[in-house]
């Protein structure tokens, strides 16, 4: 069974401690933005592998197509245009799930087992368990999960967990013709990113940086940004973190308070009943005017 290769590290709304005895290597995808030409092969390969077909839209003045992530588009090339010092720059960015080490979506989800984090770092949605509340879309610091209008389930990139489970790389990684996408252990990807970072700095991109934000415990999709000092230019938050509500609402304290309140109400009701007995409705107050002896 697939679970043997992908141990579950964490799952939404869990009530038991997940097994932690086994250690499996963490995987990561490296997106070398400086090598990306925006050909969208990754987008095609993603739709092909995951059996998705987005609607054919209309041109809206940008090469970003379709215009946004959706239940049918789990990865999307975003073409950010910016003018600096009189020169036009085209910042092409591969949008999609970053597979956080501390996922806000998982913390926000109230449906048991709808969001699962595997020990290799992949954060996977199980739509069968999804109740369509959309809390994960509010909990995600990167605005990635999309609630489907068709079936009221939330969808996002799975990092091709079905392929990784049998030892293959994700579909987008395999297709990338320029070598902008790499896949391997997180350690290897960080090493490769550092090496490439030196390259970029040598060539004048002195502010290039690796985007692996600490606020969400690091991610399993790491980006190498030529303009690393301004991740906002690529549509990435500078300091992403999981919101306080998402962190607190299923904590032991919050649940303790909830259970105590419920128990308090029950005990108070019982005491009230013992002290005052059942509600005595005067004969004239009965709605049907019925008088009982």
């Amino acid at each position: 069974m697939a679970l043997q290769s992908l141990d579950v590290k964490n799952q939404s709304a869990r009530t038991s401690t997940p097994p932690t005895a086994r250690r499996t290597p963490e995987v990561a995808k490296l997106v070398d933005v400086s090598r990306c030409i925006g050909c969208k092969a990754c987008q095609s390969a993603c739709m092909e592998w995951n059996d998705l077909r987005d609607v054919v839209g209309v041109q809206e003045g940008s090469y970003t197509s379709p215009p946004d992530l959706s239940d049918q588009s789990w990865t999307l090339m975003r073409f950010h245009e910016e003018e600096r010092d009189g020169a036009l720059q085209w910042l092409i960015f591969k949008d999609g799930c970053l597979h956080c080490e501390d996922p806000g979506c998982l913390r926000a989800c109230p449906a048991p087992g709808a969001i699962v984090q595997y020990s290799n770092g992949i954060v996977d949605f199980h739509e069968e368990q999804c109740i369509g509340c959309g809390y994960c879309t509010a909990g995600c610091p990167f605005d990635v999960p999309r609630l489907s209008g068709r079936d009221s389930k939330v969808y996002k990139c799975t990092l091709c967990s079905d392929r990784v489970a049998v030892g293959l790389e994700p579909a987008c990684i395999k297709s990338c013709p320029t070598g902008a996408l790499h896949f391997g252990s997180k350690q290897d990807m960080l090493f490769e990113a550092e090496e490439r970072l030196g390259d970029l700095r040598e060539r004048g991109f002195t502010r290039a940086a690796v985007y692996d934000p600490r606020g969400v415990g690091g991610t399993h999709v790491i980006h190498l940004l030529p303009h690393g000092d301004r991740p906002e230019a690529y549509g990435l938050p500078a300091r992403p973190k999981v919101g306080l509500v998402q962190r607190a609402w299923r904590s032991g304290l919050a649940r303790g308070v909830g259970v105590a309140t419920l128990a308090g109400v029950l005990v108070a009701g019982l005491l009230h009943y013992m002290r005052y007995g059942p509600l005595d409705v005067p004969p004239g107050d009965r709605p049907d005017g019925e008088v009982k002896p």
Partner: protein
Amino acid sequence: MEYSRRQFVKLAAGGLAGSSLAALGFSPARVLAEVREFKLARASETRNTCPYCSVGCGVILYGLGDKARNARTEIIHVEGDPDHPVNRGTLCPKGASLVDFIHSPHRLRFPEYRAPGEREFKRVTWDFAVQRIARLMKDDRDANFLQKAGDVTVNRWTSVAFLAASASSNEAGYITNKVIRALGMTALDNQARV
């Protein structure tokens, strides 16, 4: 089955307590987490060449079934061939979506013919198509074949051009050249520079 009043109240209270506990998160059901089933586990693999441009990327066609006599194969997935020296597994967006090209309702599945003056294409047999092409080529060659230019023997046929495929093997390219040059055709082209 019959309940006494007391039994009914007990049952109702038990049900309420159980559902309250489940609502509080003490659910008895184990929630199983499993990845999506790997869809190529027993699919049959066939190597091929991407039909689009002249780069000629190697692709693997994944077919449903094990090619047993009574199983009709259906291509369910196409991806790059990691052992192919040209692309080593990578593909462009068009190549990566080849499976839709294969199953496209607009794909030409048989020869069609639109007679001069007609508006519609009509389905014809391969025999008809091949014979008609041969007939027209022969007529044109008989009319326009140039045996000599001045005193020099040239054996040229310049009024017709031939467009060959780009994703051919060396052998297919060799045969194409042999046949076309033997006819005297000088304008032979393929899509080798897209």
